[in-house]
């Protein structure tokens, strides 16, 4: 019974995992383009995010088709509707990476950037949150999803630390003010990426418990 439907649900999980991996890779690539001041790598990041737009449309179409044809109930309904919501967050993560890639171009054209360890740490944490949130959905693991939500505080703290540091830099050294502002914007994008990972984790929780969590 319902062999096809189960296969299609499995495929949906696989596609979401692939899109999650693309998001991770977009974050890693765009940060590499910043640290290396390399426009080619920034282009590569942009190409990944373009591909993510296509993935989003594909997953959306599949979800809508499943809703129409299978009229899912109970856990199936939660699985498909959560996927439909999560894919939007993944796509937004792609958008944020594209924004960072544009900034990366700008910074590179101005002659490279200062190495900024906290921004790299933020990016690593955000990428890891994306990965863990999708894994929580695939494994139906509400505990793992809850841990992603907790990690968000670390990224928020890092953002505040980075911001404080860069404001200080601007005060001390006006010639670096432009670059400092750009870095604050990049840090903000990364902080938003972590928020999207939290949304994804909350949809993974919904999939298990049926409870829609309040937005933060």
């Amino acid at each position, binding site marked *: *019974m319902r062999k096809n439907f189960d296969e299609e649900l499995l495929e949906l999980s696989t596609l979401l995992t692939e899109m999650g991996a693309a998001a991770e890779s977009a974050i890693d690539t765009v940060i590499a383009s910043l640290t290396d001041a390399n426009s080619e790598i920034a282009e590569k990041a942009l190409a990944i995010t373009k591909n993510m737009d296509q993935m989003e449309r594909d997953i959306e179409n599949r979800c809508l088709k499943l809703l129409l044809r299978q*009229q899912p*109930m*109970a856990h*199936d309904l*939660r699985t498909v509707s959560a996927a439909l919501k999560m894919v939007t967050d993944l796509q937004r993560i792609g958008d944020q990476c594209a924004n960072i890639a544009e900034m990366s171009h700008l910074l590179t054209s101005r002659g490279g950037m200062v190495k900024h360890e906290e921004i790299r740490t933020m990016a690593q944490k955000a990428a890891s949150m994306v990965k863990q949130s999708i894994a929580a959905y695939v494994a139906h693991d509400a505990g793992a999803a809850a841990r992603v939500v907790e990690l968000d505080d670390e990224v928020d703290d890092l953002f505040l630390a980075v911001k404080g540091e860069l404001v200080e830099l601007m005060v001390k050294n006006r010639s670096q003010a432009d670059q400092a502002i750009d870095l604050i914007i990049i840090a903000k994008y990364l902080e938003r990426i972590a928020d999207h990972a939290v949304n994804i984790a909350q949809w993974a929780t919904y999939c298990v*418990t049926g409870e829609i969590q309040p937005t933060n």
Partner: protein
Amino acid sequence: MQEGTIISARDLDLYYGENQALKKISLEIPERQVTALIGPSGCGKSTFLKTLNRMNDLVPHVRIEGLVEYRGQDIYMPKLDVTWLRRHVGMVFQKANPFPMSIYDNIAYGPRTHGIRSRKALDEIVERSLRGAAIWDEVKDRLKKPALSLSGGQQQRICIARALAVEPDVLLMDEATSALDPISTSKIEDLIADLKKQYTIIIVTHNMQQAVRISDKCAFFLMGQLVEFGDTTQLFSMPQDKRTEEYITGRFG
């Protein structure tokens, strides 16, 4: 009995001879809401529906234990007037079964048996019932035509109008749309949504999407037992019992 409950079953057992068809069913039906009974064939949902206006009395070798109350009245007490019960708890069946007489006489049949003779009063009842069943506009110019000349969907609405003519409190519907096309089905579903402002409706349906669309509460029956009863949206999005989950997601059997 909880407040807002119109019909309540307590520890209801029903046997067809040796065969137990209902096992300790306890269920409170809320007033002026739509309650859907779902479950696989032979689970007892139709049997349960029929106990609510004693249609099972007609089945040989049937034995009932436990309590069913309509507005606090034990409907299986020996002196109960079954006609009184069925006037208050009406029924519409799977297959439209209009009487082989005119549309008008179909609707006037019940009120006449309850002693209403005045032409004016009957005219009013017929019009009100046909309007209530959302079929007045389609038949008002041919009330003298045989009800059997109408389409299946129209016949079913005539049967609903006939049930409404005696001003019942509760309407039982046993697979009332399963023989109808989607347009007629949708008309009857709309009608049910309107009727619940005034009546309590209990439906048996094999169509789970229909249960989701039109019911407020839903009861899942399995092998004569009530497995789960709750808000329809809750039951279909986050069922509490594994067997409910398995049934509604088609993982059964």
